[in-house]
């Protein structure tokens, strides 16, 4: 079994909303507003990096406990996948 590689669903783009000063995912007929943490995760999802590599990168960048990061990231990714914006 290969490690899961998350990617944005078709038609979903990461964008900065200058007017409101926030990051969001532009998606079919809706937008998903990303807070700072969600943006840190989603901006590392490029369709090539595995989920484990994304977690490693975040743990290193934030100098944080990997297990804690792993739980948060997996919850977020599962939530965004259920909403159809991540695969």
């Amino acid at each position, binding site marked *: 079994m290969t490690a899961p590689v998350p990617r944005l669903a*078709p*038609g979903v783009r990461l964008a900065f909303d200058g007017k409101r000063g926030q990051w969001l995912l532009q998606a*079919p*007929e809706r937008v998903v507003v990303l807070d700072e943490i969600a943006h840190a995760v989603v901006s590392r999802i490029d369709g090539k990096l595995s989920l484990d590599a994304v977690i490693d990168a975040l743990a290193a960048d934030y100098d944080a406990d990997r297990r804690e990061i792993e739980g948060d990231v997996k919850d977020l990714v599962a939530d965004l996948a259920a909403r159809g914006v991540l695969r």
Partner: protein
Amino acid sequence: MMAPPLALLAELTHRCPLQCPYCSNPVALAGVAGELSTAEWCRVIGEAAELGMLQVHFSGGEPLVRTDLAELVAHARAAGLYTNLITSGVLLDAAKLAVLVAAGLDHVQVSIQDTDPDNADRISAYPGGLAKKRAAARLVHEAGLALTINAVVHRQNLDRLGEMIAFAEAVGAERLEVAHVQYYGWALKNRDYLMPTIGQLDAATATVEAARARLGGRLVIDYVIPDYYARRPKACMGGWGRRFVNVSPVGAVLPCHAAETVPGLVFATVRERHLAEIWAADPAFEAFRGTDWMPETCKACDRREIDWGGCRCQALALTGDAAAMDPACDRSPHHAGLIALAETASARPAEIAAYRNYRNI
């Protein structure tokens, strides 16, 4: 200061090869002569982006009858907007799609009338439409664009909801919108033909729940209980003048696509004024914005900023007063009458009273 709207509904034209008896266009359809020009639409799209809107929905009528659609899509992308095409699909072929993809189109929504081809033909008065829609939807998916199937449901097709879900899966859609008909304009004329029975509705809701459990995020299904059988109203358009701006083919700026049914409202046009100015202070946008206009029961209700009083066009259609409580709410004095009306309509003969076309306006 009013927060900026999220999306522009650009109704490019009322022209359409289909004649669906529930069309959301106004009964007074606009002709081609008064339609905004390419330059005017480009200016409106620019104003929308400047105002802070994030998405533009190119709709109609059938937006593909406009030969400048790709130009408008490219203009919207250059302005930073997310671009949606809302189409019947019957005029979409590989060559047209390639041009739209090159222009930067993000997403296509293809509507279907039914999965039974004969019934689809009857509903749309357009022979052979279903096969064309299936082909168009597959082209969109193969081009790598996001695809939504929009199934408008009512008594004449609701029993095939399971097949419609299978259709959406088969063409590779990421999203399925199961849209119950809303009864104003054309659909109000054809309510006896369209109104589902309560039995059909319960079965459909169970079908959706089972499909959601099976499909998860692979095919997201948007579905809400139709107003006539609901207990609480919907936040129509996310609240009047809160999230959306609808520009009609002739440039009228509307809080929703049916707003022109409300008597006494005068709508500004993009030919006269900037969208930002209209959004900020236009009397038609102010008329039902927020909670000040609400009847006392609504003003005192803890859901007043959840549903924003429901749908004004529906309140008007059912009570004669656009400022009345939406009868979909069980606190409305008209609520019991609404369910009775739905049950009566759903037992009437299945005859189309008026196809949506220029002869019947």
